[in-house]
C-alpha cells in the first residue's frame, strides 16, 4: 500500500460512493469514521517501514508514480495529513445537523483529497492544476439549488482559474533561474508571476471581492469549509515555494511585501466588516482578515513566524466551524441575514446567536477565547519590529470587534416581554455547547493544541529549522 493511495485515491473513491447515498446521517457517519481512520493512520502509521500485525506484514510506501510524475507523502507530511483530515472531521460532523451532509461530506472529501494531492505532487508546481480541479469540484457545493449562479460564485471560478496559468508559467521561469541564478531579469519576472498567481489563489487585496459575495449567496457551512480549506492548503503550497527556492526566501523585499499585503488585508477586512449589514458578509471579511494574519505571520520570518502561523490554524478552524454552523442555523429560519431583519433573535435562538458572537470575538483575538494566544503572539513579535504595523493591525481588529458588538446588540434587541426559548435542535445545542467549551479551553490552555501542530515545521526543510 502506498500513502497516496490511502490518503488521496481512497477518499476520492469513497466520495464518489457517498454521492450515491441519500440518508444524511449515514453519509455523515461513513465520512466521519473514514476521515477519523485517515487521521489516526496519519498519526500512527510510519512511512516506508515494514510493520507486522500477527502473521501479516505490510509497509506504507511514500511514493506513487502516475504518468511519469510522482505523488509523494513522506513521514514529515504525516502531521499535515492528520491536521487536514482531522479538521475535515469537524466540518463533516456538523453537516448533518443543518442538513448539508450530502453535498458537503461527499464533495468535501473529494476536494480534501485533491488538495492533499496538490501538496503531494512532484514537481510541486503541478499543484496549481490539482487546486484548479478542486475549485471546479467545489462549484456544485457552493451553488444554491434552484437559483442561477451568483456573482460571487462566478468570480470565485474566474479568479481561481486565472491563478493557474501564472503559477504554472512561473514554474518554468523558476527552473530557468535554477540553471542561471544570476539572471536578475528572469528573477523579477518569476517573482511577478508568482505574486500574481498567489494573489488570485489566496484572494489577496484587491482580488477578494468574491468572498463577501459568496458568503452572502451560498450556504454558510459549505462556504466556511471552502474558505477554510483553500487558503490553508494554498499557504502550505506557498510555503513550499519559499522552502524550495533560496533566492525567493532570501529576497530582501519579501518581508516588506508580505507585511504590506497582510496589513492591507487585516485593515480592509476589519474596517469593512464593521460596516456590513449582512451576517454572511461579516464572516467573509473575517476570513479575509485571517488570510491577512497568515500572510503577516510569514512576514515575521524564521521559525517564530512559522510557528505562529501553525498556532493560528486550530483556533481558526474551530471559530470558523462555529460561525458557519450558527449562521446556517439562522439562515434556515430567518428570511434574510440582514441585521434589521434579525433583531431580537437572541431570545429565540440563544445557542446559535451566542456561537456566532463568540466565534466572531475569538477571531478578533478576544482574551480567554481560542483566538487570543496566537493573536497575542503576533502582536508581541510585530511590536518588536514595527510599531506602525501594530497600529494598523489594531485598527483592523477593532473593526472586527465592533462588528461583533453590533451583531450582539442586534441579537439582544428583543421587544419587551419576549420570552427566552431555544429553537435549536438537541444535536445543534450539544454541538454548539461542546464548541463553546473548546473555544474557552483553547483560550485558557493553548498548549493543549500544541501536539496538533508542533510537528508541522518539519515539513519544511529550510523554513522549519
Amino acid at each position, binding site marked *: 500500500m502506498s500513502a497516496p493511495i490511502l490518503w488521496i485515491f481512497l477518499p476520492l473513491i469513497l466520495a464518489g460512493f457517498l454521492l450515491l447515498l441519500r440518508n444524511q446521517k449515514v453519509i455523515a457517519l461513513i465520512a466521519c469514521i473514514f476521515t477519523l481512520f485517515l487521521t489516526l493512520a496519519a498519526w500512527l502509521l510510519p512511512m516506508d517501514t515494514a510493520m507486522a500485525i500477527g502473521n501479516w506484514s505490510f509497509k506504507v510506501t511514500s511514493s506513487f508514480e502516475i504518468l511519469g510524475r510522482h505523488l509523494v507523502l513522506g513521514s514529515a507530511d504525516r502531521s499535515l495529513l492528520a491536521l487536514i483530515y482531522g479538521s475535515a472531521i469537524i466540518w463533516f460532523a456538523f453537516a448533518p445537523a443543518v442538513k448539508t451532509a450530502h453535498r458537503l461530506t461527499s464533495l468535501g472529501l473529494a476536494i480534501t483529497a485533491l488538495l492533499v494531492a496538490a501538496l503531494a505532487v512532484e514537481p510541486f508546481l503541478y499543484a496549481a492544476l490539482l487546486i*484548479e480541479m478542486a475549485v471546479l469540484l467545489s462549484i456544485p457545493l457552493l*451553488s444554491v439549488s434552484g437559483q*442561477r*449562479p451568483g456573482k460571487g460564485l462566478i468570480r470565485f471560478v*474566474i479568479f481561481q*482559474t*486565472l491563478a493557474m496559468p501564472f503559477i*504554472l508559467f512561473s514554474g*518554468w521561469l523558476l527552473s530557468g533561474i535554477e540553471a542561471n541564478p544570476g539572471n536578475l531579469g528572469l528573477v523579477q519576472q518569476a517573482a511577478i508571476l508568482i505574486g500574481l498567481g498567489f494573489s488570485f489563489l489566496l484572494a489577496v487585496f484587491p482580488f477578494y471581492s468574491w468572498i463577501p459575495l459568496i458568503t452572502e449567496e451560498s450556504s454558510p457551512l459549505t462556504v466556511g469549509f471552502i474558505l477554510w480549506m483553500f487558503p490553508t492548503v494554498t499557504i502550505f503550497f506557498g510555503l513550499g515555494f519559499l522552502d524550495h527556492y533560496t533566492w525567493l526566501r532570501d529576497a530582501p523585499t519579501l518581508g516588506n511585501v508580505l507585511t504590506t499585503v497582510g496589513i492591507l488585508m487585516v485593515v480592509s477586512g476589519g474596517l469593512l466588516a464593521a460596516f456590513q449589514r449582512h451576517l454572511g458578509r461579516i464572516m467573509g471579511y473575517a476570513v479575509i482578515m485571517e488570510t491577512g494574519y497568515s500572510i503577516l505571520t510569514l512576514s515575521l520570518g524564521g521559525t517564530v513566524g512559522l510557528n505562529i502561523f501553525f498556532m493560528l490554524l486550530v483556533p481558526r478552524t474551530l471559530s470558523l466551524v462555529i460561525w458557519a454552523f450558527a449562521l446556517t442555523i439562522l439562515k434556515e429560519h430567518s428570511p434574510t441575514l440582514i441585521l434589521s431583519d434579525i433583531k431580537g433573535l437572541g431570545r429565540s435562538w440563544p445557542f446559535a446567536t451566542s456561537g456566532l458572537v463568540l466565534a466572531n470575538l475569538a477571531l478578533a483575538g478576544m482574551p480567554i477565547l481560542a483566538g487570543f494566544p496566537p493573536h497575542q503572539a503576533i502582536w508581541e513579535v510585530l511590536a518588536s519590529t514595527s510599531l506602525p504595523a501594530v497600529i494598523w493591525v489594531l485598527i483592523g481588529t477593532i473593526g472586527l470587534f465592533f462588528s461583533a458588538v453590533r451583531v450582539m446588540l442586534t441579537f439582544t434587541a428583543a421587544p419587551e416581554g419576549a420570552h427566552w426559548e431555544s429553537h435549536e435542535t438537541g444535536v445543534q445545542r450539544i454541538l454548539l455547547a461542546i464548541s463553546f467549551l473548546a473555544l474557552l479551553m483553547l483560550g485558557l490552555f493553548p498548549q493543549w493544541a500544541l501536539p496538533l501542530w508542533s510537528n508541522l515545521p518539519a515539513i519544511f526543510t529550510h523554513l522549519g529549522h
Partner: protein
Amino acid sequence: MVTIINWIALFIVLVTSIGLLLQRDWRWGIGLLTTQYLSIFWLVQTHWPVSMAAVKLVTGWMACAILAIAQLNSGSSQETEESWPQGRLFRLFTAGIIMATTFVLSLRASSWLGLNLPIAWASLLLIGMGLLQLGISGQPFRVILGLLTIMAGFEILYAAVESSTLVAALLSAVNLGLALSGAYFLNLPQEEKP
C-alpha cells in the same frame, strides 16, 4: 509551408475569437469555439507530437459538445447581457485594441520564448480576448467561453516549454471541468424575478 499554415491558424484564431466576442446566439459561439480548437491543435503540434496535440483537439471538441448539449437542455437561445456596454461597435473597438497590444507583446514574447511570431501572437490574442470576454460579461455561458479561450491561449504558450503527459492530462481535465461547470450553471433552474 508550415509557416504559412501557422499564419492561417492565427487568422482563424483572430476571426473566431472576435466572433466569440460579438456573437449573441450560443450556436454561433459553440461553432466558433469548435473551429478555434482546430487552429489550437495545429499551433500546439508545432511543439508536441501530433498524438499529444490531438488531445487538445479532442478535449476542446468534447467541451464544445458538453456546452452545446447543456444549452439545448436549458432551452435559451439568446441571453440578455446586463453589463454595460453591449454594442458590437464597442466590442469590435476593444478587440482592435487587444489585437494591437498583443501584437506588440508577441514580438517580445516570440524572441524571449523562441517561438514563431504567429504562435506567440495567437496565444496572447486568445488570452487577451478571453480576458476581455470575462471583463464585459457576467453571463455564465460567456464566462466559461472566456475561461476556455484563456486556457487555450495559455496552453499554446505552455506547450512550447512543457511537454509532460501528466500536465497534458490535467489540463484536459481542467478544460472538461470548466465545460461541465458551464453545463451545470446553464442547467441550474432560472432564478425567479420578483
